Structures are given as structure tokens and as C-alpha cells.
């Protein structure tokens, strides 16, 4: 489903509204990273990802997407719902008892679009690499996409994965790092300095692309297209994507303070006032049931 840039931007505005409302209604969740990665998710599902519905776990011949930093589930759930994976109304169940929209994404309740649980950080790249290896073995031309946080790169398993992808010459994989420079306890350079991040990935044998404006839809769409043009050349590809945590809501922007905090009623209203309702808000229904 190819959309023009304006359509993608209008989708992004609606997704940002969804994120704020989802987190507000259950008074928990992670708005900061979700808002920062909204343009990326919309670009992936709206422009680049080759998928079919209804969702199939194995997804033969399709592109797969893996979210390693599972705490930004609100943006993923909103984009999945608005891409037709499950009813938009189901967003109202986020983080509520008996929901398929668990705090962190999981396959356990059978939510369409999710292929592995994530939340405990640092595991998604390994899983994506496994899928990429198996797709290669199967002669499957589908591309594997994965998103990881930058703070998440503190986890050692990532570096095992990064080394192994280059060793196995995995070139049907595009990893994107949400390079927002923030983690729970503060700026990444203060909490655990990532140092020369592009140099590290390059030294591990990856094709490194830097996307300076990860909140500019046109640049994001083009950045992913550029990465795709470098597939199948014997090297894994990483996009280091600079985003602003909390992008789109002025008082949440570029601060780690909105990593995992829900807005109150006043803040929610102030946030929604900044985000145009383009595709219609999902109806809030405290009693919504799946397959009702």
C-alpha cells in the first residue's frame, strides 16, 4: 500500500494522538519513544513493508518487522491497528486486564502483527537475525526489519548479535536504531556513553547509514529506501536514526522525563491540541471486548 507523503504525515499525526490517548486512558506506558518513532513506523508500514493480511506468523515471502525496544508498544499497536491488523477500537484495551495489547508486545494472546515477545531489552536483533538466516535458507526474498533503542545498546547481547550478523553475511536485514540520545535515567552519554556509535557498527562490519532527521517523513521514507538499495551485498545494514523523544508534543520533546510517564488530564488535552485529528480518534470504550 503506497501512500504519498502527505497521507503518511496525516497518518503520523493520528498515530501520535492515539499514543497520547492510549497512555492517558490507562495512566501508564511509554509515550516518549513512541512519539519519537512515529514517523518511522508510519513510513515502514505505510510505504515500505511488504505484508499481507490476515496476519500469518511464518509470513513466507513477506517482509517481517521486529521491535526490540518493546516498551514503545503504543506506536506499534496504533500503526498495526490503522494498517488493518486488528480493529482500531481495540486500542481502547491497551494495558487493561484480558487485553491482547499487553504493556509490552507479545505473541501470547495472539495479537496479529507480533511474532515474538519483547520488553526485556537486547533480544530483538538476535531474533531478527534468526529469521533472516532462515529466510535465506528457505530462498525467501522477504526483507527483515528490526528497530532497537539506543539506550538498549547497553545490553551485551546486541553486540553478540551485531558480530554474528556480519560473520554470517546477513544482507536481507535492515536494523534501525532509534538514536534519540535519551534513556530512563538521563542522556545516554551520562548514563552509559555509546561513544562513536557509527564507528562501532562499521567496525563490526555493517553498512552504516545515518538518518539525521528521523522525524521528517520525507527523509525517513527516503532513508529506508536508501537502505533497501544496499541489500544483498554481503553486509547487514543499520540506519542510525536521530529522533527527538516525545516529538510532536512540545512539553514532552527531547527529554528522558517522558520515557515512561502518562500525562494527566490537563497535559493530555494540551498534547492533543497540538496534534491534528486526521483519520478520526478511536472511540474510548471502557467495556470493549475482543470479537464483541
Amino acid at each position, binding site marked *: 500500500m503506497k501512500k504519498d507523503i502527505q497521507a503518511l504525515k496525516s497518518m503520523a499525526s493520528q498515530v501520535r494522538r492515539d499514543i497520547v490517548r492510549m497512555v492517558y486512558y490507562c495512566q501508564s506506558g511509554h509515550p516518549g519513544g513512541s512519539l519519537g518513532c512515529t514517523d518511522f513506523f508510519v513510513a515502514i508500514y505505510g510505504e515500505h513493508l511488504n505484508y499481507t493480511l490476515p496476519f500469518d506468523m511464518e509470513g513466507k515471502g513477506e517482509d517481517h518487522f521486529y521491535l526490540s525496544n518493546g516498551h514503545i508498544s503504543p506506536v506499534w499497536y496504533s500503526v498495526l491497528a490503522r494498517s488493518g491488523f486488528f480493529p482500531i477500537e481495540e486500542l481502547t484495551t491497551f494495558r487493561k486486564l484480558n487485553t491482547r495489547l499487553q504493556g509490552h508486545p507479545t505473541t*501470547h494472546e495472539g495479537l496479529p502483527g507480533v*511474532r515474538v515477545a519483547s520488553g526485556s531489552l537486547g*533480544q530483538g536483533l*538476535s531474533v531478527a537475525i534468526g529469521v533472516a538466516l*532462515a529466510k535465506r*535458507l528457505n530462498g525467501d526474498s522477504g526483507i527483515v526489519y528490526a528497530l532497537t533503542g539506543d539506550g538498549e545498546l547497553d545490553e551485551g547481547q546486541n553486540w*553478540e548479535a551485531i558480530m554474528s550478523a556480519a560473520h554470517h553475511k546477513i544482507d536481507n536485514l535492515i536494523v534501525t536504531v532509534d538514536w534519540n540520545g535519551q534513556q530512563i535515567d538521563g542522556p545516554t552519554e551520562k548514563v552509559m556513553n555509546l561513544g562513536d556509535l557509527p564507528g562501532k557498527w562499521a567496525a563490526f562490519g555493517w553498512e552504516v547509514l545515518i538518518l539525521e532527521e528521523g522525524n521528517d517523513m520525507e527523509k525517513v521514507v527516503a532513508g529506508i529506501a536508501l537502505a533497501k538499495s544496499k541489500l544483498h551485498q554481503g553486509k547487514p545494514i543499520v540506519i542510525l536514526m536521530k529522533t527527538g523523544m516525545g516529538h510532536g508534543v512540545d512539553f514532552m520533546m527531547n527529554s528522558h522525563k517522558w520515557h515512561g510517564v502518562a500525562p494527566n488530564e490537563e497535559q493530555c488535552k494540551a498534547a492533543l491540541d497540538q496534534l491534528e485529528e486526521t483519520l478520526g480518534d478511536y472511540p474510548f470504550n471502557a467495556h470493549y471486548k475482543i470479537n464483541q
Partner: protein
Amino acid sequence: MISIHNLVVNGKKATRDGFGVGLLEAGRINTNVLALTADLLGSLKMDDFKKEFPERFFQMGIAEANMMGVAAGMAIAGKIPFTGTFANFSTGRVYDQIRQSIAYSHKNVKICASHAGLTLGEDGATHQILEDIGMMRMLPGMTVVVPCDAHQTKMATMAIAEHYGPVYLRFGRPAWPVFTENIAFELGKAQVLNEGSDVTLIGTGHLVWHCIEAAKTLANQGITCDVINIHTIKPLDQTTILDSVSKTRCVVTAEEHQIYGGLGDLVAGLLARQLPTPQEYVAVNDSFGESGKPDELLAKYGLGAQDIVQAALKALTRKK
């Protein structure tokens, strides 16, 4: 009827050798079977698989956490990955990876773990994991299999390839008597290796052989034993255990594992809920291991056949 008096022993072989043979056979039967190792190809006896199916073998280096995630990913794409490394590095080192990416996500990954327990020998306590059965059986949906000899390890390896879902397969390093070649293997179905009336000996892994030896010694003293091989720890064959214990009214469990969290606790939990019965544990008593030869270690840590005999005599005195 199978009994301790007619078991055919066909020499000694390491259970890990049975794994190597079983993996190759499973690979021949099902082209989706893949093998991964974390720099322990030879120790895990995966050489023949690699030779016959080089494109289906993956060397992952000394990076077990990544290996578990990669295996989960392969399973998503329809493959049946078998990971192979030592039991310590297959469980404790990667518990969270197994928990989230494999068990909670219900991926069809076979976690194959060699060099479990004290019989790893000279390498000592850093490598002698004695907590792995407990850790793995606590995970919802995880099947846990601990075969007792090389033949059974081969059969179990082939069986888990055909079973959909995450599995932990535990085996070991030392040459050990092979005695199950004429006994049918069914995942989840305990094997009764001897029938008696006085005491039930329930073993898993290497210690099943010690249960057999203990039953022979006890028979010479006029005490007859049920000997049960629990090769599948989870799901547990409760019926076989309850049928036996309702007859004998006392029980000994024997395992190369800590007293906490293993077979003993599993049986005790079952009996506490359904048939309270005097039980004695033969297991490592809340301690780490050390360097030594397998037989020396089993003797020092109270896991010898004679220890099972003593435990049975004690259990008999507690019988009402």
C-alpha cells in the same frame, strides 16, 4: 516384562553420543531441523550433522544469548532449531532469553544441553550445573527431558523434533551403561524398569542406572522395588508414579541435581497434593560441586547406588 534381572546392557556410551546420532537422524527425517552451537561442536557431537548438512549447521561463537534469540527467529520462519552447548550455558546464562524469546513466545526451539551435573567431572563447579532442571521446569509450556542412557538420548532427540514447542533436553559427558535398547520410548510416558512391592525408586538421567543397581542390592536383602525412569520431567507422568506409590507406600527419588527444584521436589509436590507418602531424596544437598572423576564425585556427593539403598531402607522405616 522388563525387570532388573533381564535388562540387556550393551556396553557404555556417553548420552551426548546418543544426541549426536539422534540429531543426524532427525535431520535426515525432517529437512527443517537445524543445528546451532556456541563453539562446542565436538563436545556436543554435532560433527556428523555438520558434515552431512553443512548449510543447516550454524556456528554462533561463544555467544549463547544471541544463539537463543537466533534460534527463536529461525523457529518463526518454520525451522526446528536445535541449540547445543553445555547445560550451564544453555540455561543459567541465558535464562531471560529463553524465558522471553522462546518460552513466553512459544517458539519451537530445542535447547540441547550436554555436560549437565557433577559427571562433567574435572572442569569443576563453574561448569557443573545442578539447578537447570528446576529453572527449566518452572517455565510455562517448556517440555523438560532427561534421558538415562545414550540410546534413550537418541530416541528423545528424534522425538522432540516431532513435538511442536520449546524443549529442554539434558544429557551428559561420561560413558554410561546402555540398557534401554529394547525398551520403547514415548515422550511423557515414564518407564517401569522393575516391579516390586516394598519401595518405589524414581530416577532421572544417569541416576536411573544407580536405581537399578540399588534395586538389585535390595533384592538380595529380600526387598523388592518398583524402579521408574522419569525421562520426561515435564509434563510429568503422574499416573505411573501414583499407581506405584499407592502400592509401595514409600518412595526414593534420585537425580544428579540440587535437592531444590528437581525431580525430588516434583514428586514430593505431586504426592503432597494427591497421596502423602514418606519420601527420601538422593540429590546434591544444597552445595556446589568440585573437580574430580565422575564416579568419585557421585560417591562424595551422595549420589551412588549405595546411597539409594540407604535412602530406601530409611524410607521403609518411615512407612506406616
